[in-house]
């Protein structure tokens, strides 16, 4: 008999979970409190599939989840851009570049000439950098939209939007709670880490791949998007405040892109965004079983890097009775 699965939350966690379950033959219904899919944290993400860079501060298990997720996106989403990522630092912050290199792997140390070959518009601006050529990136909003369509058309997943239903109230064989920080009331050790981002637009400069600019206080990344747009992110503040971007954060993010290239000074500010990343105390994601409900949460800053791999595990728990002690904590 076909298993009926309900998923609450249509961010990258909920959508990839729906996909992994549908691939295994489940009948899936997805609920979300918003009118459109993916309007939480996932909407504001950078979309960098930068698992080796993330090793600068993340635990090794993020690298394992990231490797699997990178393969998932490459297999299932045609919008993955496989151009690697580039890490640079202003001359006076080169100690940070050394530290970054000491903590990470899968990069080559490149000189200014190679920086200019990779990113012609950055010619002459950096004498050295780290090139992570196996990394990739995607546009999160395109990925969410693509999954939404796929799930509806190819897999018959039913979407119930504008729904305030609680996971506990749903009648299904299994319920996956993918609500992110909204699930705080049932996950007391979950906390929020505020992130703020900007989208700017300028045709004076173009970039091919995400650039991380190291800085002791405010490391930022700039991700090129279609039509001369750039996403700049993201602050990391121990707070669950969901109000708008603060003036200070905006100044810091803009200062950083201006340091990357003064041409960004003429860019128009298209959009600002703020949301709260759900995180457990060790900043690692978990699957918590509570009866027939599975709570998939704590992706922190690793939504696109963690969700597909966590989803696969959840799907195998539900469909095949497997267990995954490394994430079931």
């Amino acid at each position: 008999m076909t298993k009926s699965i309900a998923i609450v939350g249509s961010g990258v966690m909920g959508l990839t979970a729906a996909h992994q379950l549908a691939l295994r033959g489940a009948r899936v219904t997805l609920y979300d409190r918003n009118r459109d899919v993916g309007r939480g944290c996932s909407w504001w993400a950078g979309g960098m599939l930068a698992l080796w860079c993330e090793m600068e501060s993340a635990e090794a298990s993020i690298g394992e989840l990231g490797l699997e997720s990178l393969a998932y996106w490459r297999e299932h989403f045609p919008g993955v851009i496989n151009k690697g990522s580039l890490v640079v630092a202003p001359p006076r912050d080169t100690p940070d570049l050394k530290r970054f290199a000491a903590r990470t792997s899968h990069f080559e140390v490149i000189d200014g000439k190679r920086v200019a070959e990779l990113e012609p518009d950055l010619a002459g601006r950096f004498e050295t950098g780290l090139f992570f050529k196996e990394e990739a990136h995607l546009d999160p909003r395109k990925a969410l939209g693509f999954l939404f369509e796929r799930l509806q058309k190819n897999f018959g997943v039913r979407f119930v939007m504008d729904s305030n239903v609680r996971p506990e109230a749903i009648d299904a064989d299994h319920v996956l709670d993918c609500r992110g920080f909204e699930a705080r009331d049932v996950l007391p050790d979950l906390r929020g880490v505020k992130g703020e981002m900007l989208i700017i637009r300028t045709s004076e400069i173009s970039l091919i791949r995400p650039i991380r600019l190291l800085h002791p206080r405010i490391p930022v990344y700039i991700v090129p998007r279609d039509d001369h747009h750039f996403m700049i992110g993201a602050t990391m503040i121990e707070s669950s405040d969901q109000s708008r971007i603060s003036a200070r954060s905006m100044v810091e993010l803009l200062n950083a892109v201006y340091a990357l290239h003064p041409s960004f000074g003429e860019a128009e500010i298209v959009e600002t965004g703020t949301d709260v990343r759900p995180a457990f105390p060790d900043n690692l994601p978990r699957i918590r079983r509570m009866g027939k409900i599975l709570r998939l949460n704590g992706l922190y800053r690793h939504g696109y890097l963690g969700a597909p791999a966590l989803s696969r595990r959840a799907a195998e728990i539900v469909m095949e009775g497997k267990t995954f002690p490394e994430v079931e904590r």
Partner: protein
Amino acid sequence: MSDQVSFYGETFTSRLLLGTAQYPSPAILSDAIKDSGSEIVTVSLRRESTGGKNGRAFWDLIKALNVRVLPNTAGCHSVKEAVTTAEMARDVFDTEWIKLEVIGHADTLQPDVFGLVEAARELVSQGFKVFPYTTDDLVVGEKLLSVGCEVLMPWGAPIGSGKGLNNLFALKTMRAHFPNVPLVVDAGIGLPSHAAQSLELGYDAVLLNTAVAKAGDPVKMAKAFALSIEAGRLSFHAGAMEARDMALPSTPVLGLAFSETF
């Protein structure tokens, strides 16, 4: 034997004050604090708890460690900002302790000592117990004491630079000039040897953050600092030998059967 350090009438065994920013995760922060043995941790109000209750999850994690919290006014550039932040911190953290930073220069994070004295005066009058982050200038130290500070926290080097004790002469002078004031080296410590050196000079404690938070293994580095501070303090009590310019054999020469000195 009790060799305790005292701040505003409260005594502590650990001479390491640890900052709580920039750790890879709260879990690692928590382990680092435990292994450091630190009993006082600094918490930044501005960034960690905008509006008070939104940062509560993080603040609850710190509270669970049963350590004394020293809120700070990190990132404040004016007297007014620092005073307002201190007032908010008193409400949020329920303490009159405040580490007072008034930054004069956004780039070097050098303290604005004029604003610092003014803010300290105002806060002391409101009943705060002020831990001022200052330079190694003696006269500024005197002014801070005269407005009611009972602790001085001179820098070793600029915040986050990890350069160690930049001006040994000034730090020694400060120790000699204020023999009975608790002195804490705050900022610039990069290595456990820098911390040991501070205690060797007779400083009462050190305050640091980046050196642990940004270490490859913060928990191990926290332990290394605890050990170095213990070593430095023991050395201070033990009384160091005097350095000299000439070699001096450590094995007695007299009584040897053959010796070129005769």
